């Protein structure tokens, strides 16, 4: 009886806490439009130092500086693979996030990158990337870099790197690998500033190819 009472009390408390949750001062919740999930059955019992825990639940709110907007919509995309196997590079910033056929661009095998030109240097609040979410996959050596140099030779900020085995021979990535899901991978650039955002990968657990459904870069407009 006592156990049940305390359990009910905890449940009420947690519900109220969720309802009354507020954004930290000067921040607001990033409102995202997410695609429908394309597959079920991702193992949820995986716990590993090198793989993001799969909870099977939604990610929860992510807070960004007030006034944050989507900077990457319809922006120019370039790539190490100038002739994608399937699709066009502009599909990466066209706002279509469906996991179905016809919504992704397929780049060649091995290490490949795509680069979004935001048009001007901006302080970034969030980067959301979908590689291919119609199948449970892990993309290899995912790196997200920000710079004002289109060649990424100077002033490069690494905001994400899960090249845990240093196969790219740059540096050992400390971020975890993750299984692709419909809500995409949310990366916190922690205010990193730059005009260009480059995302790279090196095949995936299903094939050697690289895919992008959509990339969204959020930041302050000025």
């Amino acid at each position, binding site marked *: 009886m006592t156990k049940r009472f305390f359990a009910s009390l905890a449940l009420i408390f947690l519900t109220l806490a969720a309802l009354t949750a507020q954004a930290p001062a000067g921040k607001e919740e990033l409102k995202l439009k997410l695609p429908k999930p394309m*597959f079920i*059955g991702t*193992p949820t*019992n*995986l*716990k*590993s*130092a*090198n*793989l993001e825990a799969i909870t099977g639940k939604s990610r929860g709110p992510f807070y960004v500086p007030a006034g944050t907007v989507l900077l990457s919509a319809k922006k120019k995309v370039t790539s190490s693979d100038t002739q994608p196997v*399937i*699709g066009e590079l502009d599909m990466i910033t066209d706002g279509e996030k469906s996991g179905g*056929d*016809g919504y*992704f661009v*397929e780049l060649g095998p091995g290490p490949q990158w795509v680069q979004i030109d935001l048009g001007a240097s901006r302080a970034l609040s969030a980067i959301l990337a979908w590689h291919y979410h*119609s*199948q*449970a*996959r*892990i993309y290899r050596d995912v790196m997200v870099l920000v710079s004002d140099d289109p060649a990424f030779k100077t002033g490069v900020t690494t905001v994400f790197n899960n090249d*845990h*085995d*240093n*196969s790219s*021979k*740059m540096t*050992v990535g400390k971020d975890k*690998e993750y299984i692709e899901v419909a809500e995409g991978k949310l990366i916190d650039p922690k205010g990193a500033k730059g005009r260009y955002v480059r995302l790279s990968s090196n*095949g*995936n*657990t*299903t*094939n*050697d*190819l690289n895919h992008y459904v959509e990339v969204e870069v959020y930041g302050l407009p000025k």
Partner: protein
Amino acid sequence: MTRAVAGALVALALTAGLALRTARLTERPMHHDEANQAVKFAALLERGEYRYDARDHHGPTLYYLTLPSAWLRGQHTLALLDEATLRGVPVVFGAATILLLPLLSAGIGRTAVVTAALLMALSPAMVFYSRMYIQEALFACFALAFVIGVGRVATGGGFAWAAMTGVAAGLAMATKETAAIVVPSAVAAAAIAWWSVGAGRPPNALIGRHLRRATLVGLAAAAGVVALFYSSFFSAPAALLELFRAAGTYLDRGIDPSSHIQPWHYYLQLLTYSASGGLRWSEGLVLALAVVGTIAAWQRSDGSSSGSSFWPRYLAGDVVIAGGIFSAIPYKTPWNLLPFYAGAFALAGVGFATLVSKERSRLVRVLVAGALAAGSVHLGWQAWRAAITYAADPRNPYVYAQTVPDAVRMAARIRHLSALHPDGARMQVSVIAPPSEQWPLPWYLRGMPNVGYWTAPGDVLALQAPVIVSSLEHAPALEQALGDRYVSEYFGLRPELLLAVYIDRGLWDRFLATARPGSEDPGATRELDARPTRRLSAVRGAPVFRPGRTAAERVP
């Protein structure tokens, strides 16, 4: 079309077919069935051991016919075998299947034969499965040889053809148990075609008192070949009885399968049109021409003595009967379409020859020929994509439960780690996974003698290895047991099937040191010990390390 022109065109088709069948032959990761066949073959290669298994693995021809390939390449152990040696065997039989088609010249004409050879050479399905170390390419070759043989006997081929037909039947039966479908289908189709042509039947010296002798010659040849192979060249005569036990196994699996269940139109749909992940595939050209050939076959009423009505009707009947039976069986895998699809190419040839011969306008004939050429180029392009570009991609409809490239990287990682370990290639590796998730690791780790296989965690011996491969099912238990002493990685085995790899932290640190810019990569510079080793031998006090395998886990 003159014989010389036809011969040249068939040679051209064969060249194109061989190019598609051999290009980058070793690149596709070994399918778990290929790996399983390779390990079974290695027992024959290394120790001369072969015993027919009524529950699995199909017939013995694949293994015995791989011996010359291994001997020619100087490979006498599993550790020394490579993909080219193994896959070279189905390549040879895939090409031989094309070379069987000219034997139909007298029955369907040279134009039809050349068309059939071209389409078969470029067909994505025929190309893809001729590059796979499974029984199918051999079986399709023997099945088509039998079909041709039955037709030749029916149209006056004599005793030599009866014997050849028996040998083909025997080889088909010694290759795959589904010969029980293919052989009667051909005989039934021949009987129907024979009956249907009525007065147009070709003269046949065997009809009458010689028929019984010809039948006995064929049966004796078939029985001899079957006995030879199934008894392991008479070293195990009792194994012949296993054939009868196998009949029950495959009957149960076909009618009441626990997996691989597909609708009746599976093969038809696969060949007609399929699309997945932005890729589109179709062998509709072959099917459309085969339909034209079938219609033409049953419209012919010329009653000529050349057998021109018999052959198209016979081929159409065979494709329809065998294809119908395979389609009616709930258990389906894509490569099972080969034995009846091989006959469809001859029928497609008949269809094209009919279209060309019926048209009097030279311009229209040229246009039809141009359409065939364009369609053939499209088929060849698809075959390249199927066999090379998307050879292991699940969007490729010919790919089925295929090992993904990530699994090859996993094996390379393990070999790389062993090069950094004091024991080298003799480093212990524990694989803790159900049998279906162990393959094709025994192939990729064949140069490492101390690889142990467990189906469940719990054995202390398994947990003492510096590298442990685990199914995700056992990953939580292993994470708990191994703690911080191990670093984990994940690798794909098949689409949507991952394996976890646990690496001793000290070994991982040594590995990372080699991954720094400018550091030497031991995996690239130090060859693993590939000397002949005892396969999957035991480490101290351990049980013999063998990968698990049960009949239900293999895809026949």
